[in-house]
């Protein structure tokens, strides 16, 4: 249980600044201190203007996504003791920065097909039976919409139109368990250049995901699904000749 002083180098940017800058802070830390706690210490003790997203403190809301020494992490569950040397904190990549460490999630949310059910059947404790009057146990989807996957994706780094791993993983989950969604429409949505085919299998999204969504595997499952089916929207030529009367088959 050693107390230490850690160096944090935090990305700072306010609207109107010419360029982002880095501010260095010396933060007292003990064994369990998280990156989020360190950043809040800076906010409360040294600089109340530091912009920082957080809400739940337990990896469920997905708001505290940052890059720590270049790696995508949730600040609330990343311990300083797991990071070596100076702790460089940047906002997540591939989304517009509002200020400091805060990104504009509108661009992230816009990539998802609508509607967007977030509760699913619970696969946990399959040996249990639900109480009378309840059909199945439910649970929230794993995806906490943190954007870490989009930040880690090398394709998203070069193509802003790519819908991204989170949106594709979500579509695949909807296809797996529809909950009133339109399966065909979702497959059609995924079957576009900027959709499931834009992925180049770097698998960084799965590496970065703090919630075990495994978006890369889900994108590959989507592709398997798409591969085997006919998608008529691209067919300019019908595959059977028109009937004698001129009507199409």
């Amino acid at each position, binding site marked *: 249980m050693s107390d230490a002083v850690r160096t944090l180098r935090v990305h700072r940017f306010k609207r109107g600044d010419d360029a982002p800058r880095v501010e260095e802070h010396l933060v007292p830390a003990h064994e369990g201190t998280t990156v989020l706690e360190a950043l809040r210490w800076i906010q409360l003790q040294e600089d109340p203007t530091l912009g920082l997203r957080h809400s739940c403190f337990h990896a469920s809301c997905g708001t505290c996504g940052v890059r720590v020494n270049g790696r995508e992490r949730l600040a609330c569950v990343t311990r300083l003791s797991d990071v070596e040397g100076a702790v460089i904190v940047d906002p997540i990549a591939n989304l517009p*920065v509002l200020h400091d460490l805060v990104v504009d999630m509108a661009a992230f949310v816009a990539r998802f097909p609508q509607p967007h059910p977030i509760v699913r059947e619970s696969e946990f404790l399959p040996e249990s039976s639900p109480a009378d009057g309840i059909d199945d146990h439910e649970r929230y989807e794993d995806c906490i919409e943190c954007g870490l996957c989009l930040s880690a994706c090398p394709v998203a*780094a070069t193509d802003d139109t790519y819908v991204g791993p989170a949106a594709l993983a979500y579509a695949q989950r909807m296809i797996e368990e529809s909950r009133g969604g339109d399966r065909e429409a979702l497959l059609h949505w995924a079957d576009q250049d900027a959709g499931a085919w834009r992925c180049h299998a*770097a*698998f960084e999204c799965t590496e970065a995901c703090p919630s075990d969504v495994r978006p890369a595997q889900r994108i590959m499952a989507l592709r398997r699904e798409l591969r085997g089916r006919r998608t008529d929207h691209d067919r300019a030529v019908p595959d059977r000749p028109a009937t004698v009367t001129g009507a199409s088959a």
Partner: protein
Amino acid sequence: MSERSPRQGRDAGVDEILEGRREPGPVARKLPGPVAWFDIRGRSTGHLAFSLNRITGLGLVFYLYLHLLVLSTLLRGEGSWNGFLEIATTPLFLGFDVLLVFGLLVHGLNGTRLALVGSGFVPNRQKALFWSFMIFGAIVLVYTAIHVFGSEG
């Protein structure tokens, strides 16, 4: 942007705040996109494979161009071609040949892995696939290098 109609009498302070954040901000990328492809610091196997595929792909395209350039010396007669053949057996050049084989092996084997994984077969074994293919490729490379340098070339 919101489709709300502009309201009369919105407070000036509120307007100022909304205006200050109307423009989308800069995207925080440390390196420009294509350069970031090759930044594997802190990244895992999948990104390494991605980067290798790109660099070998670029390398092979570059080689193809060189190859055609070299072949075009034939158009200038036997003399130029023979001149080329002289340097083609020097150790440095043979070294480049081995490099070429390296590029072909990495790109070809990883490409096979990508074709398998990317079509939805065995996505959960993509790391194991990468390393086993690369080890196989390394063995083939060593064998080739020995033969390239050992024989007349």
